[in-house]
């Protein structure tokens, strides 16, 4: 399905994840974050960039992987994206949410 965010039409899944990373822009990220009641700080942008790099390199994202990365500790990750940090950060970063096979 498609939706319009900050004046741009983008393709998203039913639960609002971008299906085409090339459509992602920082403006779209800001808008997606606003819908989740998150104000993006410099630290958020660093983490978003890091997540995008990992995913685009074909690596799987997990809380454990983030803990091992040394980029941020998990408490901070929760503080930045309260409730469901992986779910929220991937949505804002424009990458697929972590999934199982069904």
């Amino acid at each position, binding site marked *: 399905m498609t939706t319009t965010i900050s004046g741009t039409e983008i393709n998203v899944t039913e639960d609002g994840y971008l299906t085409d990373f090339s459509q992602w822009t920082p403006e779209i990220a800001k808008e997606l974050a606003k819908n989740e009641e998150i104000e993006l700080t410099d630290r958020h942008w660093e983490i978003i960039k890091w997540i995008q790099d990992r995913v685009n390199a074909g690596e799987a994202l997990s809380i454990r992987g983030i803990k091992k990365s040394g980029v941020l500790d998990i408490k901070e990750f929760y503080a930045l994206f309260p409730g469901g940090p992986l779910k929220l950060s991937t949505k804002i970063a424009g990458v697929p949410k*972590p999934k199982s096979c069904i």
Partner: protein
Amino acid sequence: MKNLVILGAGTAGTMMANHLRPKLSKDLWNISIVDQYKTHYYQPGFLFLPFDTYTEEQVKKVGKKFIPKGVNYIQKKIEQIFPKENKVQLEDETLSYDILIIATGSKIAPEEVEGMKGKNWHKNVFDFYTYEGALALRNKLREWEGGKLLVHLTEMPIKCPVAPLEFAFLADSFFIKKGMRDKVEISYVTPLSGAFTKEKSAATLGYLLEEKNIKLETDFAIERVDNENNKIVDYGERAIDFDLLVTIPTNMGDDVIARSGMGDDLNFVPTHENSLQSKDHENVFVIGDATNVPASKAGSVAHFESETLTDNILLYIDGKPLKEEFDGHANCFIETGKNKALLIDFNYKQEPVEGTFPFPGIGPLKLLKESVFNHWGKLAFRWIYWNMLLKGISIPFVSRNMTTAGKKLD
């Protein structure tokens, strides 16, 4: 003489030995397979052990029975792989290889979560991904009088990603049959955003949890098991009480991969997802749970991979380009309780959808839909595993690559 060495005599390694021995000249190629353990377990059976559906004897056999004649079966511990020197160090000898196949699988690593393998391990905190864990849980369930049961998944990727859900469904049936379902509260706890994370599965199977009165706790990233208060606690300090915790711990590749410096953070070997050649060494190939490819870690995947990998080993020996054809094909039965099951058939790109299998429009198996026939299929699979799959015999009408015929696509 040249040497082909297979590390691991589980599902994937055993299949490769059976595929390759008849295809490689005995005058030119020695084949060795190394595994320190004598017993070959039918791991899908571990799901049924805790509920007394299968007995111990139904899930294990002597591994040697499945290694073909003409293959050197070495029952020793693997210390380290030296890929630059084309050598493998075993406990008391060194093997040289021309081609190496890594099939060392994955295993649970409960020590990765604080308190998980603590004083209550196999007392009220259980895994069922090991023979010992499944048996300990069976003994517990035989006498358990009820309370809060958590079926918990630590993090992805895990072997057989549907197994925890199947466990929750079978637990519901088990307690109903025992006449004590009203004494048990079942919750499914996942780090993901739902029990079903793919669109079609969520739409068609969402009813299952509600129907079986299984509570759902999502986005739970476990930090520790609190053994004093019988709670699991996540990084956001969310806590869930339990009387009985059945957990799928972190899954990791074998320690030998870490010792050899050949793995990622979880000791899985970086592998080309379509050819199954390792990314770092052209004469090293990887199959089954040991790879980092984004396919499910499941026996059916190893089976489909083994057909492509066999072709690629022969092409590599002839100096020809490898087939980049493996598509992530998986085919899995999912028990839903009350003698019914689902069947899913999917690959890297195509999510599980409804349809008929293996004959388009006919079946007899139904995709992504509960049926008694699918349950028979799951039970029949144990025979197929021991008698066909391990021996490298193709399963009739089921091809290595996924087919879209018979599937309902948009």
